[in-house]
Structures are given as structure tokens and as C-alpha cells.
């Protein structure tokens, strides 16, 4: 009893510590600019939504939000569509080439974006992909695919091979087995992977800013616009950052139940 109380307290303290900078950012978004950075911190202030309004309307939030949703949706779906069958094959039926495929996939992420951006920009320019959602989706899908392969292979392998074998003997369709057996049994892992991909793609900045322009720019570019070098806009910037992070926060909250299935029954022991 005492142990679980201690465990809970420790978790709560750590959670508050981890969350503190973000909490401060959200609180600052409701302050005035002079209060935002005042020392000692002004704890008696009247919170206002003015900065959020400005960030939403003047900053044209919805346009960037739309792009983000499309880009994240598109690239994650492509990565899953291509990667899940591959992960399935690599997990249960690894051929001689399996190691090579995995290593190759990982290696596509070895080159920092900054080194490849000029060639990429040139190629995209010729292909007419600059400032298009499709252009960024293609890149993000390529970034996500290796993660699907590596992570989902691990989560698939958690399912006992006997189950897979037995299912295959009963019903020879890999497709059916995949959907009826494998996916349901790997939901926590699949959920975690998808969530991870969403976070990584949602926040991806470098390719987003270099390959998109007016029409296809997603939220990280929106965020960058609030980082000024002349003029004090800490509260404003915090509001923009809060808005940019909010969708992911909400997603995290909605999926937290399936992502944190702890010893629900066992906790009573």
C-alpha cells in the first residue's frame, strides 16, 4: 500500500517536472507581453485569450493546420500501407535478405537533411513538387517507413509464432491472418508506432520549410513565423506554440487509454 502510494507520488512529481516548461508556456500565452517575462513572475494577472485570437486569426492558423493534417495523414498512411506488410513478412518469414532490407531502410535516414537539401530541391524543382503537399508527403513517408519496419517487426514478433503457424495452416490467406490475428494482437505496439509517426511528422521542420512555400506550408512553418528577432513577442509565440501542439495533445489524451494499459486488473493485488 505504502509502496504504491510512493510510486504514485514519484510519478506525479516527475510528471509535473516534465510538464512544467510546457505548462509555463501555456500560462504565458494568457499573459501580456510585459508580464510574460517579468521577474519575479507575476502570479496575479488577468488571463486573456487575446494572444490565442491573434495567433489563430492573424497567423492564419487554419491554413497551416489543414496542410499539417493532410501531410501527416498522407505520409503516415503511405508508410503503414507499404510498411506493415513488409514488417509482417520480416517478422515471421525472414528470408536471406531480411537483414539487408532492414539495414537499408534504416540507412536512408543516415544522411542529415541539410546535406541533401540542395540536390533534393533541384530534383523537386524539376518535377514541379516544390510547394505541394504531395512533395512533402513523399519525403515524410520515406522518413516514416523505416520506423514502421523496425518497430512493427519488433511488435509483431511478440506474438508467439505458434499462433501464426496455426492460423496459417487453418487459413492460407496472409491478408486474412494479418487483419484477423496479427493486428488485433499488436494493438498497443501499433498504436504507439502510429502515435510516434504522427508526432514526428507533425513537428518535422527542416524539409517542411525548405520544400514548401505559400500553399503547402504546415504548422512548423507557421510556428517559425512567430520567432522574430526584433520585437518582444514571447507571449504571442507561446500562444502560437500552444495552438500548434494542441492537436497532438488532444490526440495523446484520446489515445492514452489504449496506450497506457497497465496492470489494470493486477493493480489490485
Amino acid at each position, binding site marked *: 500500500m505504502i509502496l504504491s502510494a510512493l510510486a504514485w507520488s514519484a510519478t506525479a512529481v516527475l510528471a509535473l517536472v516534465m510538464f512544467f516548461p510546457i505548462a509555463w508556456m501555456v500560462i504565458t500565452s494568457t499573459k*501580456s*507581453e*510585459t508580464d510574460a*517575462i*517579468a*521577474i519575479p513572475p507575476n502570479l496575479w494577472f488577468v488571463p486573456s*485569450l487575446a494572444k*490565442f*485570437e491573434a495567433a*489563430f*486569426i*492573424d497567423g*492564419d492558423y*487554419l491554413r497551416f493546420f489543414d496542410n499539417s493534417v493532410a501531410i501527416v495523414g498522407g505520409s503516415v498512411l503511405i508508410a503503414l500501407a507499404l510498411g506493415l506488410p513488409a514488417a509482417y513478412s520480416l517478422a515471421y518469414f525472414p528470408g536471406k535478405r531480411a537483414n539487408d532490407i532492414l539495414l537499408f531502410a534504416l540507412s536512408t535516414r543516415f544522411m542529415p537533411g541539410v546535406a541533401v*537539401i*540542395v540536390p533534393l*530541391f*533541384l530534383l523537386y*524543382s524539376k518535377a514541379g513538387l*516544390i*510547394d505541394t503537399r504531395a512533395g512533402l508527403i513523399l519525403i515524410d513517408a520515406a522518413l516514416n517507413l523505416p520506423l514502421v519496419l523496425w518497430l512493427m517487426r519488433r511488435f509483431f514478433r511478440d506474438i508467439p509464432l505458434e499462433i501464426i503457424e496455426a492460423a496459417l495452416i487453418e487459413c492460407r490467406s496472409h491478408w486474412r491472418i494479418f487483419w484477423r490475428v496479427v493486428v488485433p494482437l499488436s494493438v498497443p505496439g501499433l498504436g504507439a508506432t502510429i502515435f510516434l509517426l504522427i508526432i514526428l511528422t507533425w513537428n518535422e521542420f527542416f524539409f517542411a*520549410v*525548405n520544400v514548401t*512555400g*505559400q500553399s503547402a*506550408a504546415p504548422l512548423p*512553418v507557421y510556428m*517559425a*513565423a*512567430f*520567432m*522574430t*528577432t*526584433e*520585437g*518582444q*513577442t*514571447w507571449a504571442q509565440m507561446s500562444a502560437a506554440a500552444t495552438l500548434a501542439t494542441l492537436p497532438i495533445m488532444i490526440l495523446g489524451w484520446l489515445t492514452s487509454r489504449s496506450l497506457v494499459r497497465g496492470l489494470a486488473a493486477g493493480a489490485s493485488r
Partner: protein
Amino acid sequence: MKFPSKGWALVGLAVALSTASAFAATTVTIATINNPDMLVMKELTPVFEKENPDVKVEFQVLPDNVLRQSITQDVAVNGGRYDVVTLQPYEVQSGWAKNNWLSPLDFSKLSKAEQDAYDVDDIIKNIRAGLTYDSKLYALPFYGESSFTMYRKDLFERAGLTMPEHPTWTQIRELACKLHDPSHGMYGILMKGIPQYGQLSPLITLIHSFGASFFDKDWHPQFTSPQFKKAFTFYVDLVHDCGEPGASSQGVLELLTIMAQGKGAIWVDATVIAGLLQDPATSKVVDKVGYAFAPTEGSNNGGWLTAWSLGVVASSKHQDEAFKFIRWATSKDYAKLVADKYGAVRMPPGTRYSTYKDPAYLAAAPFAKLTLQVIENADMLHPAKDPVPYTGTAQIDIPEFATWAADFAQDYSAVIAGQMSIDAALADTQAKTEAVMKAAGYIKD
């Protein structure tokens, strides 16, 4: 609750407007920075669009170092994303004009009425010179700045001190150290120390104002010269003795925050900042700031000169519309528009003589007169006491500047952080810069 309905109404309006203007004939895309004056331009753009119903203007706003990289890359490999770019005289002088990346602005093509209305001769001479290359004008200044000394006149009064109109650095040091009181959260002078080459202007002008230079007439770097070392040592010592703590990670944004919170006594920096310190929404020192010329020490060039300007990309397919837009955004009418909607103090500073003859502006901006004097005084073309082969006061106008200045900035930041000695930093920079200049063909052996 008030916000959602107002918000959705505006969202609906925005969608309606954007779909309506999707039928416009031309879209002009402008890449710009997120400074308050640019944001005003963005907010007022619908006025331009109304006067020119066939043109829609789209803004791509980025932080200035990202912007620089993005537009250079885009223009150099013909990405075609931008029609109008925001840049400074440095870009014009250090390659953009020479590489034919910008269209020379030809006013003679306009009607006499349009020329008179724009009045290109109203542009402050020094600023215009900075944007001219090979006798052709390549950009129109949106707002210009020089640098000067800002100080807390209330603190000076209380301590019985006076700021001379043309202070020397020695005097500044004296005054700063008298007011330096860290235990009560007051710092004598605010000085930058971050390792970013774009924020070296205060150091560069200080070096020049001590009579030192960066290159001699044969392009040999002068970092290890006694005069340079003296100036550099002065800067470092002043930061350490009477400056704010942690200078090696403080840039203009951080110093602005400190000053606006009332914790700095003296700050030598851009004239534009004066306007920001007068803004009650962000500043706690409104009406408490006095102004004087930038300090010198033996040379008369104390302040720097630069202007955020708008240029038309040479490969843009909308030359006429882009030119029209930048004329609009830098015109007298635009300045009047800003005064009407945001108050006279927000008129774009540092570009036109007419702004400084406007009684409303002079009344609203106590720093206006000095700003004009300082701008006219700053000579971008003759930055140093001795004849030098380069131009530029806030930067040195050669493309290689970014290369060696970036490394110099790292060393100087290390010195300020107390992790490198002055001699080691200067020797290192001297060697590196010599290598760069030799490789680029400036130094002929």
C-alpha cells in the same frame, strides 16, 4: 463565450475571401521576416489588393536567418517560390546584384505622375546608396536603421549623471560602471555575445569607431593588429565588468527583453529598437529612454546603417505586379496609411526625408530627429578611419563575410564566456580569415 463565434465568423470570412481571391489573375509571393513593421505591411495589404483587384499578395514569413538561407537557395537554384524578397544592403552589395538575382528597378518606365507620386529622390541618400550597385537601384527600403545610444534618463537624473550628445566609448564605460548594480538587478550596459554573425554589428561598429579596420587595402586581415586588439579587448572587458551576465547567449531579443523590463541602464543598438521601447504593450520603460549618438573613440563613424528592403526576384514571372507592390509598400501614401491606422509613431522609420518632416511623426517619436541625423552621418561606403577596400558598417559587404565572420563570432562568444583568451581568439580568426580570403582570391601573393 465571445471568442468562438467571433473566431468562426472570421474564419468563415477568411475562407470566403480566399476563395474569392483565388480567381485573381496574379499572385505575388513575398518572403519576409516577422518584425512588427512587416506584420503591419501584411495587415495593410488588403488595401493594395483592393486598389489592384487583379493582384493577390501572399506572405511567407520566416525568422531572418532561415529566410536568408531559404531565399538564397531558392533564387540560386531557381526554385521560383518568391516574387519579392526582403533583404538588406548587405545582400545587394555582396552578390545578389552581381549575380543578377534581382531586377534593377527602372522608374523611367513609369508615367511622370507615378514617378512624382513615388518620389524616389525622397529616399534618404545613404540608404539609397546602399541599395544601389553599379548605378542601378536594386531594392526599395522598407525601413532603415542606424545605431545609437539609448539610456535611462530617469536613472541618469537620479544619479546626477549626464550623457553627452556625442559620447566616447571611454565615457560610456564610465557611466555604465557607475550605474552597474547587479545585486539590485540593474546592469550598466547591455552587450551582445551570441555566436551569430548576423548580430555582430555592435562589435563591428565599435571596432571601426576605435579607428581599427578588418582588412587593409590589400585585403590582409587585421585581427591581430594592435588597434583591433585594443578595441576588441575594450568590448570584452566592458561586458565582463559592467554588462549583463551570460552575455555569450544573449542576442538582440534577449537584450530587448532586459531593457524593456527596466534592468539595463545603457544600450547601444539599432534605432528601430527605440520605437519598441516606446510601446506600452511590451515595454516598462516608456518615456524613460534618452538618446545620443553612437559612441566613437577616435573615428567619426560610430553608427551602422542598414535597411530592410524589398527587391524583385529577377526570375519572377510577375515583374510588373511585384514592382508595383514594393512601390506601394515603400510609398508616402503607405506611411500615411500606417499613421492613420496605427498612430504616427509606427510610420516606417529611416527611409524617407518626408517622414522626418511630418510634424505628427516628430511629435510622436522623440527619437526621430536623432535617428535622421545618425542615419545621415553613417557612411556605409567609408566605414573605417583608414582607407579600406570594403564597404559596409553592420556587416562587411563581401560574400565571404558569412564564412569568416561566422567563425569569428564563435571565437568571440567563447571569449565572452570566459573560455578562450583574447589572443588565442584573434590569432585563430586571423589565420582562418587569411585562409578564406586567399582561397577566394582576394589576397594576391
